[in-house]
C-alpha cells in the first residue's frame, strides 16, 4: 500500500516545483484523513486506549519530511502519526499498530505512541515528553562517526521545553557539530495548559543560548516550512552543525481523542479561527490554485484517492488478527 508519494526520495530527484508542492498537498491530506479515521475508530470503540491527533499541524511534518532522504532519521512524539506518515510509513500497518494487531509496525506491542519503522528511518514515537531528544542526537552522532551523511530530525511539542535533557543534548550537539535539527512544534498547549504559563522567556532563546542556529516560522505554511527545513538540513548534512526550528501551529482536536470538553482551557472562537483562517491544507490549496498548479477538481480527486487508500487501510487493520499470546515474551532481548 506504500505509494510513490510516501517515498520522498524517489519523487524528489525528478520532481518539478509543481510536483513537489502537489505531493506536499497529498501528504497533508493523507494525514488529515488518517487522523479522522483514528477518531472514528475511537468513537466506534474499535481502538484500544487513546490517541493524540495531529490534525492542524500537517504542514510541519510534511514540510520537513519532504526535505529529507528516506534514510534520514526522525524521532517523534505521542502525537506522532503525522511524522510517521510524512516520513513514508504506510497507513495499513500504522492502523494495524493502533489496533494492536500483529501486522502493525511493532507487531502490536507499541501502539499509537510507539510506532517505529526502520525502513523509513523512523526511530520511534515516544510517550515520554522529551524522551527522544537524546535518541535523535545519538543518531546524529552515529551518522557523523559513520560518515553516512544522514541527518536526524527531532520532533517535539513546546511542552518538551520543560525537560532539562533537551538542553543537555543541544549543548552537546552544538559542541560536536552534529547533524540534528530540533523541531519545536508550538501548538500553544501542553495538554490543558497554555504554553505561556509554562514557558519563561522565548522559545528561540533556548537554542540561541548554545550558539545554535535558530529560526521561527509559520508552521501552517508548508512551503515556508519546507524551504527553511531544506536549508537547515543541507547545512547539517554539510557538517555545519545542528539547528533549532520553531514552527507555530495548532492542534484542532483535544489533547487526545477523549478530550472533548475543552472550553475550560481554550475557546471555541480560537479553535474556529485556526480552522477557518489558518488551515495548512486550505492555505496550500489556495496557493496551488492561484499558481495554476491545480484546479479544485484535481485537488478533490487527490483527496478521493487518499480517502480510498486510508479507508482501505482501516479495513485491512480491522480485519487483521491479534498477535498470538505466545508472542508476549518475544522481543524483550535481541
Amino acid at each position, binding site marked *: 500500500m506504500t505509494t510513490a508519494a510516501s517515498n520522498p526520495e524517489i519523487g524528489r530527484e525528478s520532481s518539478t516545483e509543481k510536483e513537489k508542492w502537489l505531493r506536499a498537498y497529498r501528504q497533508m491530506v493523507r494525514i488529515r484523513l488518517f487522523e479522522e479515521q483514528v477518531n472514528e475508530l475511537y468513537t466506534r470503540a474499535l481502538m*484500544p*486506549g*487513546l490517541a493524540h491527533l495531529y490534525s492542524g499541524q500537517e504542514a510541519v511534518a510534511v514540510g520537513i519530511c519532504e526535505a529529507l532522504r528516506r534514510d534520514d532519521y526522525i524521532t517523534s512524539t505521542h502525537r506522532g502519526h503525522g511524522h510517521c506518515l510524512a516520513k513514508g510509513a504506510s497507513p495499513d500497518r500504522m492502523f494495524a499498530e493502533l489496533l*494492536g*494487531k500483529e501486522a502493525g509496525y*511493532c*507487531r*502490536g*506491542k*507499541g*501502539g*499509537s*505512541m*510507539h510506532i517505529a519503522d526502520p525502513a523509513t528511518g523512523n526511530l520511534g514515537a*515516544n*510517550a*515520554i*515528553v*522529551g*524522551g527522544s531528544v537524546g535518541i535523535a542526537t545519538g543518531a546524529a552522532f552515529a551518522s557523523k562517526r559513520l560518515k553516512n551523511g544522514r541527518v536526524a530530525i527531532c520532533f517535539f511539542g513546546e*511542552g*518538551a*521545553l*520543560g*525537560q*532539562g535533557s533537551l538542553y543537555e543534548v543541544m549543548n552537546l550537539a552544538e559542541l560536536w557539530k552534529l547533524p540534528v535539527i530540533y523541531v519545536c512544534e508550538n501548538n500553544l498547549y*501542553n*495538554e*490543558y*495548559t497554555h504554553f505561556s*504559563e*509554562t*514557558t519563561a522567556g522565548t522559545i528561540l532563546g533556548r537554542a540561541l543560548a548554545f550558539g545554535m542556529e535558530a529560526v521561527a516560522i509559520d508552521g501552517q505554511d508548508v512551503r515556508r516550512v519546507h524551504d527553511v527545513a531544506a536549508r537547515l538540513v543541507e547545512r547539517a548534512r554539510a557538517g555545519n552543525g545542528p539547528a533549532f526550528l520553531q514552527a507555530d501551529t495548532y492542534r484542532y482536536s483535544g489533547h487526545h481523542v477523549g478530550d472533548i470538553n475543552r472550553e*475550560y*482551557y481554550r475557546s471555541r472562537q480560537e479553535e474556529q479561527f485556526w480552522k477557518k483562517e489558518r488551515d495548512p491544507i486550505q492555505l496550500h490549496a489556495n496557493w496551488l490554485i492561484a499558481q495554476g498548479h491545480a484546479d479544485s477538481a484535481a485537488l478533490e480527486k487527490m483527496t478521493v484517492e487518499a480517502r480510498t487508500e486510508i479507508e482501505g487501510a482501516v479495513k485491512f487493520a480491522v480485519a487483521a488478527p*491479534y*498477535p498470538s*499470546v505466545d*508472542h*508476549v*515474551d518475544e522481543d*524483550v532481548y535481541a
Partner: protein
Amino acid sequence: MPETATPERELTFAQAVREALAEELRRDECVCIFGEDVAEAGTPFKVLSGLVEEFGSDRVIDTPISEAGFTGIGVGAAMTGLRPVVDIMFGDFLTLTMDQMVNQAAKAHYMSGGHWKVPMVMRTTLGATRRSAAQHSQSLHAWFSHVPGLKVVLPSTPYDAKGLLKTAVRDDNPVVFFEDKMMYKLKGPVPQEDYTIPFGVADVKRAGSDITLVATSSMVQVALGAAVLLEKEGISAEVVDPRTTWPLDEKTIVDSVKKTSRAIVLDEGYGRYGATAEIAAVIAEGAFYDLDAPVKRMGAMHVPIPFSPPLEDVTVPTDEGVVAAAREMCRK
C-alpha cells in the same frame, strides 16, 4: 479494625484521594500541591477537580513538564517550611525524579545529622491494563522501597487511600504514594470524620485459614476476587494487605502464614527483584518452620508492558491465575 466502622457513605478511590487532600489543605496552610495540569484540569484522571477553585492557584499550582525540576523544588520547599504534595502524573515518569528523590529527599535528614527534614509527599500512579503501553503502565514502587529514607504507600481501597494519604501529608519524611489508575472508580465506604491510618500496619482484608494471599494495591482486589472463588472450592484464603511496602509490617504477614502454612505474594510490579521478592524472602525466613510449600510469587510478567490487549492482559496476575496457583498449593 477500622473497616468495620459503620459505613456512612461510599466514595470512589479518586474522591477519597481528593477529600484527603482537601482536608489537609484546609487543616494546614503549609500544604500545597504542584504538578502538571493539577489545577483547572484537575489532572488527566480528574482526581484533583475542584481543589484549585477552593484553595486558589497559590496552593494548587500547574507546572511545566519538568518532573526533575519541580520535584527538586518540592524537596527544597519541604526543607524550608512547606508540606508540598508533588504530583507525578504517571508512575513511569518517576524515572525523571530519581536523583531528587533518592540522592536528595531520602538522604537530606541523615546527611545533615538529623537537622533538615523533608516532609513531602509524591503522589503518582501505577498499574497496567489501560492500553497505555510500555511507558505508561509501570509499577515502580520496588525501587523506592529499596531506598532508606523514603516511605512507600500503596492503598488498595478508598478507605485506605484517604487515611493513608492524610498520614503521608502529616509525616515528616518523604513519602511516595502510589495510586492504581485503574482503581480510581472503585467505590468503598469512607467515613466523614477525620481519620488517619498509621504506616507499617498491614490490614487483614479477609480472614482465612488455608492459604495467605499477601497482596498490594490493585492486587488486593484480585486476591479478594480469588478468595471468593476459592471459597467455593472449599479453600479458605486470608488476604493480607501490607498497605506500606516501607515500613513493612513483617509480623502481621508472617503470623498469617504461620497460621495458614502457605503463601502467595501478589504485586503488580515486576516480580524479579521486586516487591514480591522482598515479601517472599521475609515469609520464607520468618515462617520457615511452618511453610508447607514454597512461597509463590506472582508479579507482572518480565516484559515491557505490551500495547496489544490480548498480550497486555496476560502480563498481569488475575483471579483465575491466583485460584489455580492456590489450588495447586493446597492440594499437597
